[in-house]
C-alpha cells in the first residue's frame, strides 16, 4: 500500500455542493474506490475549482486509475508522496 497525490483538472469547474447531494456523491466515490482497495483520505480544491489534489492510499497506480475510471474522474498525474510534518523536529 502506498500513499499518492492525484492531480485532476476540471476545465468547467468541479461541481460539488455542500449539501446532501454532495455528501452522496462523496459516498459513491468512496464506495467505488473501495472495490479497488483505494482509500480517499482528503483533497485540496483550487479556488477556481478547476484543479483538485487528492491524497489517497492505494495498492498501485493502476488501482487508482481503475477506480477513477469508474468514478468518471479525470487524472492529470499520479505522484507517490511521503508525509513531512513541520512539528516532526520539535
Amino acid at each position: 500500500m502506498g500513499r499518492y497525490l492525484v492531480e485532476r483538472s476540471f476545465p468547467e469547474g468541479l461541481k460539488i455542493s455542500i449539501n446532501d447531494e454532495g455528501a452522496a456523491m462523496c459516498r459513491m466515490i468512496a464506495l467505488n474506490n473501495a472495490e479497488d482497495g483505494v482509500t480517499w483520505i482528503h483533497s485540496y480544491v483550487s479556488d477556481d475549482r478547476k484543479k483538485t489534489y487528492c491524497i489517497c492510499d492505494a495498492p498501485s497506480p493502476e488501482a487508482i486509475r481503475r477506480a477513477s475510471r469508474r468514478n468518471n474522474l479525470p487524472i492529470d498525474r499520479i505522484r507517490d508522496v511521503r508525509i513531512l510534518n513541520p512539528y516532526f523536529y520539535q
Partner: protein
Amino acid sequence: MDELEVILQAVAGGSGRVVLVTGEAGIGKTTLVERFAERHNTKARVFWGACDALFTPRPLGPLYDIAPQTQGELLTLLEQQAPRPSIFSAVVDELQKTKATSITVVEDVHWADEATLDLLKFLGRRISRIKSMLIITYRDDEVPPDHPLRLVLGDLPHRSVARLRLLPLSESGVNTLAERAGRRIEDLYEVTGGNPFFVTEALASKGAGIPSTVRDAVLSRAARLSPASRAVLELVSVVPARTQMWLLDDSIRPDAALLEECVSSGILRYEGDAIAFRHELARRAIADSLSVHRRQSLHALVLTALVNRGSDALLARIVHHAAQAGNSASVLKYAPVAARQAAALSAHRESASHYQIALQYAGELALEERAKLFEHRSYECFLTDQTEEALQARREALEIWKQLGNHLRQGDNLRWISRIQWFLGCGMEAETFGNEAVGVLEKLPPGPELAMAYSNRAQLHMLADEREKAVLWGSRAIELARSFGATEILVHALNNVGTAEYLGGNDEGRVKLEESLRLALANNFQEHAARAFTNIADTALRLHDYKLAMRYVDSCIAYTTEHDLLAAKLYMMAWRARAHFEQGEWDKVADDADSILSVDRVSAITKISALAVLGHLRVRRGDPHAERVLNEARELAMQTRELQRIAPVASARVESAWLKGDVEQVIREARFVLEMAKTHDDPWLHGQFASWIWRAGGDIEISEKIPTPYALQMSGNWRAAAEAWKQLGCPYEEAIALADGDETAQCAALVIFERLGAGPAAERLRHVLRSTGVRGIPRGPRPSTKQNPAGLTTRQMEVLALLAQGLGNAEIAERLFTSIRTIDHHVSTILAKLDARTRAEAVSHAFQSGLLKQNRQSSAPN
C-alpha cells in the same frame, strides 16, 4: 439449512449449483449436510464421497466411494483404469441419467488429491446444465492462499456457486445446550470458543469443570470404556476417515459386543458398511495418545489386511500404512505402483509425493532402481511447478548414473537439467548442460535421447534468437526423430526450427509451426500444443502482425484454460498485455499484468514480460513506481541472457530516459541492445533501438535491414512513417512520428497522446510547441466512461434491473444464483451510490438519470 433448501429449489428448476460449505473442524459441516441429505433422500438421488487424511491422498478417492452407490458403468470404468476423460464424462452421464434431482456430497476437500480437484472443476463448469447439486465441504481455515483448492474454486463459474460459511455457536447457544444437558459449567463458551463438537464433548465428559482441550474431552470419554473395547477404538483411530467392516474383521476380528460398546458410548458410529469416529478430531485425539510402538503395530495389522485384499483402489492406503508401520519393504513395493497409478489419473502432485516416500526408504535399494525413482519424481515435480525439487531429483539421478557408468542415462539427465535450468531463468546453466548432454550422447549410437538433446539445443538457440544455430540443430533432430518414428520429438523440433525461421521472416517457418501444432493436437500432446500456439502468437507479435497474433493468442488462452495448463496460459496473457500495450489499449494491459503478478508461483520468464510491460505503461503514463518494477524485471531478464526478455525492459528504460531528457543514458542503453539485436539479426529491435539513438542525436548507420516505419522516420519522412505506424495499428508510435512533423502534425500527435493518457509525452510536446510560439495548443478529449454515470458495477446493474422489475431480495438472489446476504449488500451499495433512501427511490433515480433505460437490455439476466 434454509439456504440449502432455497438452492435445491433452484436446482430442481433445472440449473445445477455448486455449494461450498465451510468452517473450522468440529463446526458441524457434516452434520448439516447429513441432515439435509436425509431430508431429501426419498425424492433426490444422494451420492456421498469423502477425501481422507492420508499423507498422500488416494487419487479420485471420493469417486471410489461414490461409484458403488451408482448402478452405472462408473465402477467398471474405475476398475479398468479407463482414461480420465471417459471417467469424468461417465460421472456427468450418471448425474443426468434420471429426471430426479441429484445431490452429490464431497467432504473434506482440503485433503483432496489433484485428480479429485480436477473432477470438481470439471463438474463445476458443467453443473449449470445438469439438475444436480454438488455440495463441497472443507475447512477454510486450513486452506492457505497457495492451496491448489483455491485455484479450483476461483475457476468455478461465479453464477453457479453458493457459499455457506458455518459460524461458531453464540454464547447463548452454548448455554442452551448446557441447560438441555442438565449441566451448568462456567466458562464453557470461552474455553470451547462455541465450537459445537467441543461443546458436545465437554458436556459428555462428566468430570468436574471443563477439559482444557478438545483432546482431553475425548480421552476422558474413552477412558470409561473396557480395555477390550478400547483396543478396537485404537485400531479404528489409525485408519483415516472410516474403517470398513471387512478391514476390522481381517485385522482384529472384534466381538460384536465390543463394537456395540464403542457405538453406544457415543464415540464411534456406523456409516454404511463401515465404522468411524463421530468426528475426525476425536480420531486424531485417540491416535495421538498411542505409544509409537503400539501405533506402528496397529498400522502393521491394517497393512496386512489391506495387502491381502489385493485391490488397486487400496494402493494409496497401503502406502500410507506401510510408511506409518515403518515397513520399508512394503513401501518400496507399493509406493512406485501407487505413484504410477496416480500419474495415470493425472494426480501428478500425489505421484511425486509417493515417489518421495519411496525414496525415503530406498537406502538399501539397488542403485539403478534408485536412480529411476529420482527420474520419475523429477518428472512429476516438473509437471506440478515444483521446479527446484525437480532439479534436485535430476541431480541425484545423474550422480548415480555417473557412478554406474551409464552414459545414455547421464546424457538424458543432463538434457533434462538443461531444460529445468531454463525454466528457472538460468540461461548460462541451461546452455552448459545442454551442450554437455549432446557431447555425452554423440559418443553413443544415435537414438531418441540424442534426437531430444539436439532438439533441446535447437530450442535454447531459438529462445536466444540464434536462429541459424537453432535451424542447424533442429534439422538434425527432425531427421533423427523421423527415422525413429518419434512423433513427440518431431513435434518439439518442428516447433523450434519453425519459430526460428518464421522470426527470420521466412514463411516456411510458419508452415512448420502449424504442422507441429496439428501433430500435437492430433496426438493430444497438450504441452506441445500450448507451446506451438504461444510461439506462433508471440512471433507474429514480434513481427507486428497483430491480427494473426491476436487470433492465436485467443485460441491459446481458450485451449490452455480448457486443459488447465496454467503456466502456458499466464505466459500467453503476458504477451496479450504487450499486444494491447502496443495497440494503445492501456487499461487492458494493467488488468492482465495484475492478474499475472498476483499468482504466487509464476515462472521467471512470464514475470519478466509482465513486469516489463507494466513498467513501460507507468513510464508512458508518468505514473510512479515505474523504476521499481523495471529494475526487478531487468535483474531477472539479464539472467536469462535472451534478447526477447532483455529488449522490452530496455525499451521501457530508454523511453523513460528520453522523456526525462537524459540523452546520454538513451544512447548508452540503446547501444547495448542494438548490438545484441544486430548479432541476433532481429530487424524490428534493430530498428527500434537505432531510432532511439538517432532521436537522441547519436551516430547511427542506416542499414537496409531496418523495417520501413523506422527507416522512413530516420530519413526524415515523418508523414509516411506515421502512416505506416497507423497501418500497423500502433497509435503511440504514430504520434511519436507525427511529433517530428509540422505544426498541424504536432497538434494531431498531441491529440493522440492525450487520448492515450500519455502524460509525459504530451507534456514534452506541449513544451516544444510553446517554445516555437504556437498558440491555441489543443487539449485532447479526456477518456471517461459516460455510459454508467453512477459508477455501478456490472453485477450491481443486474441487481438494479431486477429491483426495477419489483423483485424482492430473495427472488433476486435466486435469479442471480447467490445468497440473500450478498444481494442485501448489493442493494445497500446501490442505494448509497444512487443516494436513495428506498428501493423505489433508487429505481426512480435510475430511470431519471437514464441509467436503467440504456442498460436494461444488456443487463437483464436471461
